[in-house]
């Protein structure tokens, strides 16, 4: 009986020590609360599609942003890369009438190029990535606006994608589940393998833990940082591609909300703001929690005027609960010793 209790609490300890436990409990609480308030519509397919569609887009960006945060960096420029990519697709394939695959390649190329520039500037100048990427965000926004007006003479460009492209990037399955959800799942698998299976993942944790030691240990920190920024640029550009194909319209004034939304998903998912700790599962859970709260407000009958307050409160509660769980886990380990 005594041994049984020990092994039981040992199992509990292992679970508690997992960094995403706090986030997962948060997800359950949030889902139950909004299920009670939102009723049938929230629990059935339309409700699930509503928050999953939202989660998929921000989730695709949150994954690499999470990797960057684990490595101790931030990327603000994702908010500008998204519309830049959308407009690149629309300008190449609609305004100039070139094949859609060239437009998509162009859009994704913009994301990779901005990411490369971010990484280069961060590694070469030593200026914090928060500042660098705020700078590139404004630069990319300005270029997007300037070139769009110069080329298209308008702040919005339109595109009618062919059925195949539409079905790959912008279809809604069952009339409601957008294919972005499956793309998100794909990103999750790939990034999970990168972070938790390949040696590359250990380098990221090492980079976030102590950059100097990581370099001394022979990790190519500069190349790694540039790769991480290129990954987040690519992800933001990818969402830009899916949006323009889904809605057939790209606008200059778009994307800004993805900056804080992606950071919120990552933080709710238990990634340390100071770097060095976090997990892909945590980021996924954080993204789901964020999306459920965002959409839950509209199902719940709560006054949507207070929507932003609820979202803000959630962020603080999530960080507090994550910290509490981390402290509990650490003290539990300490007690055992």
């Amino acid at each position, binding site marked *: 009986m005594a041994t049984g209790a020990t092994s039981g609490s040992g199992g509990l300890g292992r679970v508690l020590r997992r960094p995403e436990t706090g986030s997962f409990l948060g997800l359950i609480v949030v889902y139950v609360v909004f299920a009670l308030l*939102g009723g049938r*519509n929230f629990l059935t397919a*339309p*409700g699930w*599609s*509503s*928050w999953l*569609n*939202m989660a998929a*887009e921000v989730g695709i960006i949150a994954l690499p942003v999470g990797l960057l945060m684990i490595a101790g960096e931030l990327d603000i420029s994702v908010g500008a890369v998204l*519309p830049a990519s959308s407009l690149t697709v629309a300008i190449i394939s609609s305004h100039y009438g070139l094949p859609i695959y060239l437009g998509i390649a162009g859009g994704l190329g913009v994301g990779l190029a901005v990411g490369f520039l971010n990484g280069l500037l961060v590694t070469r100048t030593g200026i914090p990535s928060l500042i660098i990427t705020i700078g590139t965000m404004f630069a990319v926004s300005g270029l997007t606006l300037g070139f769009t*007006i110069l080329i298209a*003479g*308008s*702040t*919005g460009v*339109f595109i*009618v994608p062919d059925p195949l492209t539409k079905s790959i990037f912008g279809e*809604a399955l069952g*009339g*409601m589940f957008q294919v972005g959800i499956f793309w998100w799942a794909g990103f999750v698998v790939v990034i999970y393998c990168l972070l938790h299976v390949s040696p590359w993942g250990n380098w990221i944790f090492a980079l976030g833990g102590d950059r100097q030691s990581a370099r001394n240990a022979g990790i190519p920190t500069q190349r790694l940082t540039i790769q991480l920024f290129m990954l987040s640029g690519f992800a933001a550009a990818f969402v830009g591609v899916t*949006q323009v194909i*889904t*809605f*057939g*319209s790209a*606008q200059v*004034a*778009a*994307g*800004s*909300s*993805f900056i*804080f*939304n992606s950071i*919120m998903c990552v933080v709710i998912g238990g990634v340390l703001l100071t770097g060095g700790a976090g997990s892909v599962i945590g980021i996924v859970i954080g993204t789901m929690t964020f999306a459920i709260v*965002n*959409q839950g*407000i*509209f*199902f719940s*009958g709560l006054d*949507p*005027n207070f*929507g*932003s307050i609820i*979202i803000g409160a959630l962020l603080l509660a999530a960080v507090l609960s994550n910290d509490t769980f981390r402290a509990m886990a650490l003290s539990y380990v300490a007690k055992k010793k």
Partner: protein
Amino acid sequence: MSILKKLVLSAAAVALSATASSAANIYVIGGKPDDPFWSIVKRGAEDAGKVVSAEGGKVVWLGPQNYDNLGVDAAELIRQAIDQKADAIVAPDWVPDAMDPAFKAVKAAGIPFIVYNAGGIEAADRLGAMNYVGAVDYKAGVAGGDYLGKAGGKSGVCINSLPGAANIEAYCKGFGDGITKAGGKSDVLPLPATAEGNVTAVTQAFKAYLLQHPDVDSVFTTANLDAVGAVQAIAQAGRTGKVKVCGANFDQAILAQIDAGTQACAVDQQGYQQGYYAVSILNGYVNYGLNIPTREILTGPGVVDKANIKATMAGTKQGTR
């Protein structure tokens, strides 16, 4: 004989210069010429300018290079028009604090002027302008509410994706008043900051709203992309054909939706009319003392729907819409 000839010639010269001075040199202050909306206003001013030119005058368009310092730059352009001895001036009152002193200088110089596009009849009254030519956001909302209400709408909602922005609030208030007067009721759906600039978030929020409000049959949008999102939300909620969409302003995507029948109407402020009528009224006044006694010349709301979609699309190609 030669003296007589000289007298005749000089009299002719006086007559000529008299004609030249009575012909109207009209200065129009507006947005950047490459701004999609302002290029339409400019086209209207230029079309009215054809009559001005035929009568020996001219229309000069003054626009800022950029919108970084809009109020101050526009005030400077008004002063420039005074310095160039304008016979009449047309200008928007974008930023009253920065621009009202310039309008007062126009008044002090005795130059007739019209406030257009922004400021409303209140600005024209305050500054002593001849008239106001333009649209009123509130009335655009009313027109949308009225249209959907008369189309059988009983329960409407206005999607406010920028809570706090004065023009959006005015659109939504107008929509509510319009549909209520037509016998329906209305609600506003304000979106949180996390949805800003994210059409997917707007779409999913409105879809959730539709699922929870099965009686809603009319929706008003205040941004072009919101109207595209609203149509997809209606489809995802399985309510295609049961919820009618009307929106403020339009672009190519909106016109395509109206043409395809997924959007009922768009409410336009008709920028072409703003440039055209402001110039035309001042030209008649300067040359012949003509006046339009109607105060507040409204150029909007102009409703675009199935009935005039083809003409509107043709106008878009011609640069008049």
